[in-house]
């Protein structure tokens, strides 16, 4: 339990930082923090199903979206006064997510493995295709907008109040999700992933367990959708988009589904980067995909797993781990610099504006990047791309070789 004792002060410190954030951040960053919290909750809800229960879902936007629309209708109910006081509105989304999760889960858990993944995808696409047709429920292409009503002496007009509302709900939901992992049904969810057949032979209702994991995941996804509506004061059928389902998969696995807080950290981190670089690049989604594939190939346990690897290395090699870390970091930075420069350069060369400028038979005009002009025909431009890539690759090979040598020496 030494692990528990070190992590509890860490957790309390994290919560304290989260509570203090509105004092430290600007309104824009605070808004981004609200989105990060929502993404973290959504990823945790997703990972209950896909990480713990081992049932890969590629259509989790459906439960997020159902929660969002239930909330928007609850807010607009009774001539705009709202079905519930504003702080309790997310309950509407959670309830809708749970109800839809039970129905969809009953169908999807008829099959396991690959077929399950495809069914979840199809259910989400079904909603995405149907939603724009049903104007009364989903507001057509333009969506439905709403207003946060004052309640309990708060007017919910400032970002700070919305932030605290979101924070309270997200922390409560994460605590409940963690509590679920300690309960017998929560432990059985893990068994569902590890050995479904044995579970069935032991006399458990496997289908029922699957539906319950699905429904709980739907509940918390709906809650995340509800919080987004409370924050944005609108809902549009775009929440059913495949991109929403995709990003929760990518974020969760980048963070690492094997640890409880891994998906939440991954989602918060990726949402923050998405916010930070959205003005600077149009290729953020591509980077997100590349990070995901790299994580899947080289760090199957995600970024949280990386911490464990570093810890192991420090324990076995002691002080010699320091140059290795520095080497890995430098090689990584060189490769990232070269790769990002290449992508951005190609993106600008392929953009509509550039193609309109470049005429047949004339020399290609220069591209502006990082406050400099780069000529696509100049050798220097491509050397700037290739040098860091080559240096990074070489360094990577060296560090990898050194680490392997030292580790085998240590083993002897």
């Amino acid at each position, binding site marked *: 339990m030494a692990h528990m004792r070190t992590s509890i002060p860490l957790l309390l410190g994290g919560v304290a930082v989260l509570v203090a954030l509105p004092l430290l951040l600007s309104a824009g960053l605070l808004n981004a923090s609200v989105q990060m919290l929502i993404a973290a909750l959504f990823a945790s809800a997703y990972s209950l199903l896909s990480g713990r229960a081992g049932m890969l879902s590629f259509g989790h936007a459906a439960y997020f979206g159902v929660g969002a629309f239930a909330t928007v209708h609850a807010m607009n109910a009774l001539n705009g006064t709202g079905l519930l006081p504003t702080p309790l509105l997310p309950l509407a989304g959670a309830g809708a997510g749970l109800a839809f999760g039970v129905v969809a889960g009953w169908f999807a858990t008829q*099959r396991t493995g690959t077929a399950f993944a495809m069914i979840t*995808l199809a259910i989400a696409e079904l909603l995405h295709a149907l939603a724009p047709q049903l104007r009364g429920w989903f507001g057509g292409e333009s969506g439905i907008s709403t207003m946060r009503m004052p309640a309990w002496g708060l007017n919910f007009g400032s970002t700070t109040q919305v932030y605290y509302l979101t924070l309270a709900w997200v922390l409560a939901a994460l605590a409940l999700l963690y509590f679920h992992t300690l309960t017998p049904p929560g432990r059985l969810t893990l068994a569902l992933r590890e050995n479904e057949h044995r579970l069935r032979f032991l006399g458990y209702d496997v289908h029922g367990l699957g539906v319950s994991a699905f429904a709980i995941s739907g509940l918390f996804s709906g809650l995340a959708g509800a919080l987004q509506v409370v924050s944005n004061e609108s809902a549009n059928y775009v929440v059913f988009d495949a991109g929403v389902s995709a990003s929760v998969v990518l974020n969760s696995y980048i963070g690492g589904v094997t640890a409880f807080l891994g998906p939440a950290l991954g989602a918060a981190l990726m949402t923050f980067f998405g916010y930070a670089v959205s003005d600077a690049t149009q290729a953020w989604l591509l980077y997100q995909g590349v990070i995901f594939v790299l994580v899947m190939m080289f760090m199957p346990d995600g970024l949280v797993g990386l911490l464990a690897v570093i810890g192991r290395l420090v324990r076995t090699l002691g002080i010699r781990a320091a140059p290795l870390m520095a080497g890995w970091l430098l090689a990584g930075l060189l490769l990232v610099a070269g790769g990002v420069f290449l992508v951005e350069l190609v993106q600008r060369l392929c953009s509509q504006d550039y193609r309109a400028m470049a005429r047949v038979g004339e020399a290609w005009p220069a591209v502006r990047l990082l406050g400099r002009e780069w000529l696509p025909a100049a050798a220097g431009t491509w050397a700037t791309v290739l040098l860091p890539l080559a240096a990074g690759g070489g360094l990577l090979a060296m560090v990898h070789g050194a680490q392997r040598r030292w580790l085998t020496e240590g083993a002897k």
Partner: protein
Amino acid sequence: MDALVFALLNGVIYGLLLFMVSAGLTLIFGMMGVLNFAHASFYMLGAYFAYALQGLVGFAPAVVLATVLAGAVGAGVERFFLRRVHRHGHAHELLLTFGLSFIVAETIKLLFGNQPVDYRIPPALDVAAFVVGSQQYPAYRLLMGGVALAMFAVLYLLLTRTRVGIIVRSAIYKPRMVEALGHNVQLVFMGVFAVGAALAGLAGAIAGAFYTTSPNMALEIGVMVFVVVVVGGLGSLGGAMLASLLIGVMTSFAVGVDRSLADLFAVVGARDWAEGVGGLLTLKLSSLAATLPFALMLLVLLVRPSGLMGSKN
């Protein structure tokens, strides 16, 4: 009557096209047990390769080259990506291909823009095959159907009549035994993966010119193809054919039907009630055409969870 013939023909040809993409998917699944999420990306790659090459070499060579290139990309994906993560299990492989499909779609958006590109069939092929009533039927549709049928025939003969086919089929059932007999099963896997990708690429190269070539095409056809393999039964080539045709014909007919559920209620005199309820009950079947395959899939899962021609597991 004319409309009926046209709808039937269109549906069959769309179904054949779906089959071209789902054949590779279901073969790969049957063999390696991995659902290749990126499979529809090869369809999109085929279309974009053909579009990019069309101006350089002409339409027909561009289609051939696009097929070969898509196959080469498929072989690369198997060799350098899937094989590396094989030991982590099927879920990991599925996630990896999911990430790859994401990268392909984003790269295409980066290189060719978010909008559909101007990839059209050459004027020489843009002619009418025959005229029924007052409507002309485009010859290119028949060409697409013909290519799909020819592909099915070649694939079937290859699998059932040749030595390579025997090895491939046995590698599906008992890969370890085949390996013990001295065959390079890894190479067989890579070959099947490449052929599956090439077929999807060919389908994309010829269909992209007729329908639209846009960064969304992979997702659109991909979801439909997943429905096809679930309805047909995972790993069953015959099931994929049956389900493709069923879904193709069903959507094609639904587009032409201007009725809603309220009309059905009118038979028992409940039209006013149904129209009062609104929502799903008053939606025209034509606007629901895109959702029908999903409904069919849910129905099949209820009645026959292993798919129309899938084996019980």
